[in-house]
Structures are given as structure tokens and as C-alpha cells.
């Protein structure tokens, strides 16, 4: 196994999918000769031809709506939205058509398509380049929403997403594009709709996904100094949600903290907290807490560090889990 970055793992997944299935087509803004602004499609046009990987006009609704038609016509489009916030023009196509066509046609038509969206912050991007938009998509029945936290998962989950008969919103944590690990291309690892325990621990479960998986693992390592044995669950699939893996972990540890970059209010973490509380109430020693982005528009780069959950903020939250039977101070 060679050590490669997440961006390279995604590139490998796209290449292998194009190689294995004639129906797979890649298109979007700048994905052709340039290879995408993050180079995820690097060299694919050169190696497989413009027939398989091509640039489109600059219009996100157009890209997604066009992909709907292509999928209706038997292809398996993999389209790129250049940045999270630039996907919003496609919102109507995604929520009214991509998510619903199978249902509207009672199974006569399906849309096996993947919408890749580089998302979240941590790269010093200026405004409109750093949104964590997952909750918009998870709140839409009919969509699968997937996000990898590691290069290996990036490869496996993208291959699974392209093979899926359902449309998939594939959220790529852009701050992890350059993180590296040895990656196997045998597809023996991830199952697309299962969460995974990244690190075992007995005291508390950190539930994270995408960009926050690495942060949760760093926190777990730092927590040993405080005497806490921290388990880390990586959700991988935000929708559908793997209740089984998550609740099994929380039942073992009795404490849980959900971590995400997106604003907390009305956020995806609220759903996770509700599900865990409903299903694990009698095993919980403390309320399930959240560490999230602030309820503000994404800040400018120089203030970004105040927005992003980090090891200290997560540790401070873990400390509030009634270890000594003290009341929890609710989040501000």
C-alpha cells in the first residue's frame, strides 16, 4: 500500500470507477484539463479523454439538472460543485428532483449520481468557501449523505457512492485533502452506510465525521493525560444514520459528545443527540453534549480559529460530563 493524500485517494476512486464502468462520467466546473481547483480530477481528462471527464458551463443548477437528465438516460454522472456555498444555486434541483425522482416515479426512474462537494473550513478560505452545509442535505429524504474522514474511506466511500443506485451527496472535507495514509484499493473496508469505531475507549464516545474525525482522534490522544479513555466513532454516512454502531458505543461508555464544524443551532448534531438520548437514556451518566461551530456566518480567515472546534474545546466539553456528579452548565 502506498501512502497517498485524500485528494489522491479520491482521484484514484474516480479513475477506477471510470475504468470499471463505461456509464460513469465526470463533469463540472474546471474538472477537465485543470483537474479541479483541488486537483481531485487531476489527469483524468488526459488519461481517459474528454468523453469521460469534461468541463461544463459555469452554472451549478445547470450541472445538476443536466446530470439528472444524463442519469435518466442511463449514465452515472459524478459532478463536482466547486465549493460548498457554490452548490446553493443547485439546491432546487437537488431537493426537488435528485432526491425525489425515484419516489415520484414509483421506482420507474432512479438517479444513480454523485454530487461531490468540497466542504467545511480550516483552509483559510475567504467567505462563501467554507460552509458546512450537511444539514441541508440530511434533512432531505431520498438523498444519501456521505463524508470521509480518512484517505482510505475517501477511496472506498466514493467507489461505493458511484455504485449506489441512490443519489449521493459526497461531502469532501477540504482541510483533510492533504492528509496522508497508506491506502488499499481492494474495497474490503468501508460499507457506505455503516459508522466505524476509529478508536476504542471505555469512558466517553466522541461522535464525529468528515473534517472533525482527525480532531476527535487528537483529542482522544490528549485525553489520556487527563485520565479519560476516549472512544471515537466516525459516522461516515450522515444519512442514512447508523444507529446501531453509535448506540452500541454510547451504551458501552455511558457518555457522549457530538463534534461538528457546522453551526450548532438546528444542526446535524442535534439529531445525533436526540437519537442517542432516545435510545441510550438508561445507560447515560450525563446529557449528551455538542461541540460545534458558532451560530454565526462563517468568519474571515484570521478569525477562523475561534469558529472551529479544537482539542481544547472538546476536552473542556468532555470535562463537563458529570464525572463527579456536578450539574452540567448548558452551552451558551
Amino acid at each position, binding site marked *: 500500500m502506498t501512502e497517498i493524500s485524500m485528494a489522491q485517494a479520491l482521484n484514484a476512486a474516480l479513475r477506477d470507477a471510470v475504468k470499471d464502468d463505461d456509464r460513469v462520467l465526470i463533469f463540472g466546473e474546471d474538472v477537465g484539463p485543470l483537474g479541479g481547483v483541488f486537483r481531485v480530477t487531476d489527469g483524468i481528462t488526459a488519461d481517459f479523454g474528454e468523453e469521460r471527464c469534461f468541463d461544463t458551463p459555469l452554472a451549478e443548477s445547470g450541472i*445538476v439538472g443536466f446530470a439528472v437528465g444524463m442519469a435518466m438516460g442511463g449514465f452515472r454522472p459524478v459532478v463536482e460543485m466547486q465549493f460548498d456555498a457554490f452548490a446553493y444555486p443547485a439546491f432546487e*434541483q437537488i431537493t426537488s428532483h435528485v432526491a425525489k425522482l425515484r419516489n415520484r416515479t414509483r421506482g420507474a426512474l432512479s438517479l444513480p449520481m454523485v454530487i461531490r462537494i468540497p466542504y467545511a473550513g480550516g483552509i483559510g478560505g475567504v467567505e462563501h468557501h467554507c460552509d458546512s452545509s450537511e444539514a441541508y442535505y440530511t434533512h432531505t429524504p431520498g438523498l444519501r449523505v456521505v463524508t470521509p474522514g480518512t484517505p482510505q474511506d475517501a477511496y472506498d466511500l466514493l467507489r461505493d457512492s458511484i455504485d449506489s443506485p441512490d443519489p449521493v451527496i459526497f461531502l469532501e472535507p477540504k482541510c483533510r485533502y492533504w492528509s496522508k495514509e497508506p491506502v488499499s484499493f481492494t474495497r474490503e473496508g468501508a460499507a457506505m452506510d455503516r459508522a466505524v469505531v476509529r478508536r476504542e475507549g471505555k469512558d466517553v464516545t466522541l461522535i464525529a465525521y468528515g473534517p472533525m474525525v482527525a480532531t476527535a482522534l487528537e483529542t482522544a490522544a490528549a485525553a489520556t493525560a487527563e485520565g479519560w479513555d476516549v472512544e471515537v466513532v466516525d459516522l461516515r454516512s450522515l444519512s442514512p444514520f447508523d444507529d446501531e454502531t453509535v448506540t452500541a458505543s454510547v451504551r458501552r461508555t455511558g457518555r457522549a459528545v457530538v463534534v461538528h464544524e457546522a453551526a450548532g443551532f438546528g444542526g446535524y448534531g442535534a439529531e445525533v443527540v436526540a437519537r442517542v438520548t432516545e435510545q441510550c437514556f438508561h445507560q447515560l451518566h450525563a446529557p449528551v453534549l455538542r461541540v460545534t461551530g458558532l451560530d454565526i456566518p462563517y468568519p474571515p480567515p484570521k478569525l477562523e480559529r475561534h469558529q472551529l472546534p479544537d482539542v481544547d474545546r472538546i476536552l473542556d466539553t468532555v470535562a463537563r460530563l458529570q464525572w463527579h456528579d456536578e450539574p452540567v452548565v448548558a452551552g451558551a
Partner: protein
Amino acid sequence: MSRKTPAAALLPSGVPVRFLAEDGTRVDEHGHYSEPPSERLVEAYRLMVLGRRFDAQATALTKQGRLAVYPSSAGQEACQVASALALTDADWLFPTYRDSVALVARGLEPGEILTLLRGDAHCGYDPAETRVAPQCTPLATQTLHAAGLAHAMQRRGEDSVAFALIGDGATSEGDFHEALNFAAVFKAPVVFFVQNNGFAISVPFEKQSAAPALAYKGVGYGVRSEQVDGNDAVAVLSVLDDAVAHARSGRGPVLVEAHTYRIDAHTNADDATRYRDQAEVERWRAADPVRRLETYLTTENFLSANDIERFRTEAETFAAGVRDTLNADVEPDPLSLFEHVYAVPTRQLAAQRALVAAEVEA
């Protein structure tokens, strides 16, 4: 640099293409377009009579509570029927909610067409089998699907076209413009057919667009464009035949605007007297497409009194069938709600299905 088509070659006719005056007499305002064969015109007439009767029947069924709502296309029969006649069974049609008559003309089962408006399911017919997309209620979104599907067929080497119906209001939506642009850039075999019926619910065309005509919106995207008298069935059929042939031959997309008029309100639930004069409606009744074609075909001896009677009888029988179908009580299955959300139901949906099943049992 790729060679662009000169703008002049894309421009629509300065005045709407027309073969027939309002009184059904032949006029020479049709440029290079040729008149379709008389058998085709008689077939168009038969379907227009059928479609008008279907439309009236559907509106009547709303009054009896058999349909939740019905958006009438009365007055637009020439456009509706020509849309179906211009296509082969292998072509894809992308209709809106106001295009039920086009689906009747295409030969779909009326009960299946009205499933959406009856409230049983979102789409009653099988789009894969009929090559008719679900009737689209969001505006202009289906134009992009048509462009994408046309491109897919082109890649597969099929010589089918995609035909997208939209109204005047929908040309203000961004997706319409993105679809024109994508279709042109990919040279996709798609025909965009705008039925400009004068109103987007209550908003008249003057408030919708300052364009000389909607047909001019194609030129900026490199799309060949045309405008036609939408109440002249001869002209609409001729222009659409030509547009479909152009797209089918691989020469790229076409935009056609038909000038027509929505004789009824937006739907049975709308009150058009709040925003337009009855005198205007009466003026358009004088331009009625069914009578205009009937007069022409009769004068030319393509159509006999006997034919007319036969078609009217057929339409009455058809309407009776629609009544019978719609008067039968169908209880949609609540458990069908959980099918086809995903290819395989999620565990959460399986649990919710069990919950609803228990409620239904109780």
C-alpha cells in the same frame, strides 16, 4: 476557435409564423415552412377535439371533488396536440402540470395522467415505458433534464430528441437559461417549446418580460429560434416538425415560442376576473384554434361533416370513460409511502413503516 453560427441564422421570424388567419382562411405568412400533409392535419383536429373534451371533463371533475385541482389548457389545443404529433414514441416529452392534453394526444391513459391531480400518487404513468417525464410543477427545472437526457441519447447514438414544454412565466427562471446554454454548448437534440399563454397565474406577459418576443431569448445562447401563432395548428405543427427534424439531425437545440392564450383561469381554484377583462378573453375566443382548423379543413374538403360528428362522438365516449375511471374509488396504500424513497428502505424507514402499518391495523 470554433465556428459560431451567425446570429442572423438563429433569429426567429419577425412576426409569428402563420398559415391560417383567425377565420380559417389561408394566409402566406409562413416563410420557408411547408404545410403538413392533410391526413396529419385531420389527425391533429381529431386530437384537438378529444383534448378539449378531456380538458372540460377534468375541470368538471374538480367541481365534484374527484380531482384536487386541474390547470386547464383550453385554448392551447393546437400547441398541446402538435407537441405530441411532432414526436415519435422513442422521443422524450417533458411536460408541465398544464400539459395533460399533450399526454392524452401522446396516447397515455387518462386515469394515469390524472393520478397526480387526483392526489393518489405523484405520477400515474411509467415514465421509462412511455418516455414521458413526470409532469413538472417546479418551473423550468425539467428543461435541464431534457437537455441532459438529450445529450445522453446523443452519446448513445440514438437519434431521439427531448422535447420540453414550458410556459411564459417559466422563461424568467434561471434554469430555463441554463438549459438553453447547456443544450447549445453540448449541441444536444432538444426542443424547448414555450407556450406563451399570456399569464403566469395572474401576472400578464407585459410584466413578465420586456423581450420583443420570448423566442429572441434563444439567440444569445446560440440556439436557433422561432415564433409561431399558437392558435394556428397548421403553423404549430409545421414549425415543431421542422424544429424536431433540426434537433434530430444533430444540428443542435431549437427554441420555439407559440403565442396563444389561456382561456380558463390558472386552475379551477383561481379567479381570473380579479386580474383580466372578460372582453380580452372573448377576443381570444374568436381566435379559437379548434374552430380555425375545422373551418380550414372543411373548406379544403379534407374534413367532412360526417368526420366532425364521428370525432365529437369519440370525444364524448372518451370523456365518459374518464368520468368512469375517476369516479371509481381508489384507496392509495399508505405503506406505499415507504417504497422508492431509496432503492432499499433504510432501517429507520422500515421502523416508520411498521408504525404506520400498526396505525392502519388499529
